[in-house]
């Protein structure tokens, strides 16, 4: 997701009231007088059909993560947030933070093995056998877990991801 989102962040900060994208996606939700009522939510089901997200295995998680209510219903600010974090030019730190949140399925601030399993099954469309999944999850935790608590804290995650050559999204 390249140029569009980048310019978005910059320009968006100045000209906040532009609501083009939301209008495109869900015209009926946008009232004419936007400035007076900034609390429109676009439901998650609409967001995930965007071309940028529709093939992404983590689309539901992404939308949930960036939405304020945690259900994937996004206000415009959430939306802008999401793409500013996903955009090419977003700094690594920011991406790391959001990536952690995306992979943290149960929102307990740790990536535990359950989270890993979900991640893996989404990535492979469940084509690995359960034994393989377990093996991979165990190995991943073993590799990245610094404090030995069997799950990945943010520090573990950050340490690991910061060394990854292709963590560019």
């Amino acid at each position: 997701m390249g140029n569009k989102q980048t310019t978005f962040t910059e320009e968006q900060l100045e000209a906040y009231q532009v609501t083009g994208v939301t209008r495109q996606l869900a015209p009926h939700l946008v009232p004419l007088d936007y400035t007076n009522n900034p609390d429109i939510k676009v439901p998650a089901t609409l967001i995930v059909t965007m071309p940028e997200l529709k093939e992404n295995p983590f689309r539901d998680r992404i939308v949930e993560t960036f939405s304020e209510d945690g259900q994937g219903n996004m206000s415009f600010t959430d939306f802008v947030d999401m793409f500013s974090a996903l955009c090419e030019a977003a700094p690594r730190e920011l991406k790391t933070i959001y990536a952690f949140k995306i992979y943290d399925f149960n929102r307990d601030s740790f990536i535990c093995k359950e989270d890993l399993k979900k991640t893996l099954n989404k990535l492979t469309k469940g084509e690995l056998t359960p034994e393989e999944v377990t093996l991979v999850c165990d190995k991943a935790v073993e590799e990245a877990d610094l404090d030995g608590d069997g799950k990945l804290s943010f520090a573990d995650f950050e340490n690991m991801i910061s060394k990854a050559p292709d963590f560019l999204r």
Partner: protein
Amino acid sequence: MPRKRDVDEVEVEIDEDSDSDDGRSKRKPNRRQGAGRGGGGARGRGRGRGKKQDSDDEEEEAQRGRGRGANKRKPAKKKGGSDDDDESEDEAPKKKKGGAAKKKKGGKAQDSDDDDSDDDKQKKGKKGGKKGGKDEDNGKGKKGDAKGKDKGKDKDDDKKKKKKKGDSSDDDDSDDEEEEESMSEGEMARLMEEVEEKKKLIANIRTKPWRMQRRLVVLKEAQEFVDKFEGALGKGKGRKWYAYKVMMMKKWIKFQRDFENFRTACIPWERKIKEVESHFGSSVASYFIFLRWMYGMNLVLFGLTFGLVVIPEVLMGLPYGSIPRKTVPRAEQDTAQDYSVLMDFNGYCKYSVLFYGYYNDQRTVGLLKFRLPLSYLMVGIGSFGYSLMLVIRTMAKNADVGGGDGEEGEFTFAWKMFTSWDYLIGNSETADNKYASITTSFKESIVDEQENQKDENIHLRRFLRVLANFLITCSLGGSGYLIYFVVKRSQEFANRTDLSWYEKNELEIIMSLLGLVCPPLFETIAELEDYHPRIALKWQLGRIFALFLGNLYTFLFALFDEVNTKLEEEESIKNASIWALKEYYANYSRMFNDTDTTPPPMNPADVIRGPCWETAVGIEFVKLTVSDIQVSYLTILIMDFARAVIVRFLNYCWCWDLEAGFPSYGEFDISGNVLGLVFNQGMIWMGAFYAPGLVGINVLRLLSSMYYQCWAVMATNVPHERVFKASKSNNFYMGLLLLILFLSLLPVVYTIMSLPPSFDCGPFSGKNKMYDVVMETIDLDLPAFMGTLFSYAANPGLIIPAVLLMVLAIYYLNSTSEAYQNSNMELKKKMQMARDEEKNRRNNKDSTNQVLKDLEDLLPNRSLAPPAPPEPEKAADERPTKTKPGSAGKGVNLQKDVALASPNPNALGPVNRQPGPRGPGAGGGRGRGRGAPPR
């Protein structure tokens, strides 16, 4: 309004601070504690002024705020204001006194250093979400720098503050005096500063993991401030220029990005290869990537050869039939168009632009006076040079990529899990492929892992490997002897005439039989070794390579024999042809009894010609290449396609399961294909000098085989049973290619340097050696002094020192790289140690909570309001961590500090500052980041 925006950004940072107050509140307690201690943790920055009392704390804060840009001026910021004043007072005397620029500079440098390190630390420690803290740091750091750099700016700050604020406290007086001076200078410097800052800040504002709403609030305040601030700032012409610069910068960046996109879009066959990759894994894809690389290289060679040799000759040289070398001889003319003759590249093919013999030895052709012979030689040498450079550069680049990250093995699975999805995929087909390839890559890793785990019975394994190698050496030696024997026999046969078909073709038959039988044999033997498939592939490649090399060199020796006989033959023919010419003239004059009229020239088809060994060699190579193409395409058609069709359709009416059972579908033979490609390229390199058309044939071949093989592999092959990943950089292929390149360079250079060219064909005819062309050009076309220059340069007295110098340079570079390698290892070790330490520490205490808190803060429903609620907690958290620097009970940030930066300057306090009058009182670390130089 770029500048404005810039300021905005700055503001954002600052405002952030003041708004959320978290940094401040955090910092204050620290400082207090730190005051006694004289510095210590990441944020003990302003702490040095220990001897001052609480008011000092305030003051420091103020200073900090000021350092940040004096923009604390928000209405809410009363406290900040008074602090500022205090602070400015502090600095004022300093400025006056320590006018020495040097001192200032020193202070600045130090400060900025400190800031940097602090920033780093902070980043590391708090990356997660200590938003306030981080921002503050950044802002402060930058501002601090700025301030440190020029006092004028400080003054400006102060002034502005005062103007805006008006409510400053008692201490202002001292400031007032200096306020007036150095405004413009300061302005300018400040502008420059802001340019710098902007760059950093643009990156930084996005780093904040805030909700957009919060950013907006911050931004609005910033803008408000800027409106005020701007009045005081640059009104000169610098403004426009700056705006223009920024605009151009943006445009340039945009252009670069577009260009990058365009370039990526231009990579051919990317999709095809990805498709193959997703189905067959990276190893098979690596073959196709190699093929594509090869195609690119050959395109360049093709461009060189055709652009500089073939096309000039066709366009500007003499046409076909004008001279003997461009005419089919009378004896061959009847059969010259027969299909079989043309397929052997005789007849019209032989006397075409495809081969060496066709080219004329005119020094210049056409209106442009194009020096064709010279260009021919240069292109021949230049294509070698280009290939050599390209191969070596690619190898170096690959090595760079491969060696850059030594910790590859560390996080294989974790990385695969978290970073393998390509977020750019928007096409469902691509997505399917990506799923497939991710699954494949996981399987690869699992195989690798299992490979690592099993280590049973190492002795048996070793014995088997030794045995396998022994067997393979035996078979290599056997085949070598066989070839030698056959070559000997063929030399005997050469003297006889009553040869059967087999005896005539014995060498070729034996060689292709060996090539057919040995690779599967090696593969079977390699089963014994039980290597990982990736390693096994390399072994297999190496062995087949050795075998092929034997073949190649046998072929070459046979060729050289032929060349030598032709050279002998040539002598007699030369005499014969001269004699024939004389005879022709003599006959002519006798017939007409008229010695005065010059006889009409002989028909070019009738002239007696030499064997033209160069063309013969070229024909051999072209034939070899073409037959190679035919064989490999037919193999694919029969071995893969026919087999796949049979297995697929006969399976309905067969007594066992063909797909799962015996014939099954073919696997893609990576080693064979890669070697085929490499050897083919070797042929091209060797033959291109004698047959310029060969490069064109090769380009066609590579192009067609890309499509053909892609189709074949997708349609008829199945993935390897054990999918495995090709080694990250295909430097192994490149190594083979380089070896082949050297081996093919040798014979060509030998012929150029030592064999005399044919007397009646080719661009060098009539010269003693081919390189005489160069000498001739130097003598005739360049001014005389160049000739002498060259003769000097060719002097051994110059060449030997040059060679010596190069050897020395190589030695030097080698030792340098070794040193780098050592330091690299050292650093890696350090990092490992740091990690371990971190691990231990973390086990001792779970102090990750700060980060976690910030994370929680980001969770839905919580961070609606810009001033984050958990900040007081954080401050509370921080206090204990700060108090004991170096002790186990520390925040993450501190741990990192200690672990990574061995001597923590902050912890040491006073030591890192210059001693000054304030020394005793100022404890240490005072004003760090603030740019106030020590006096």
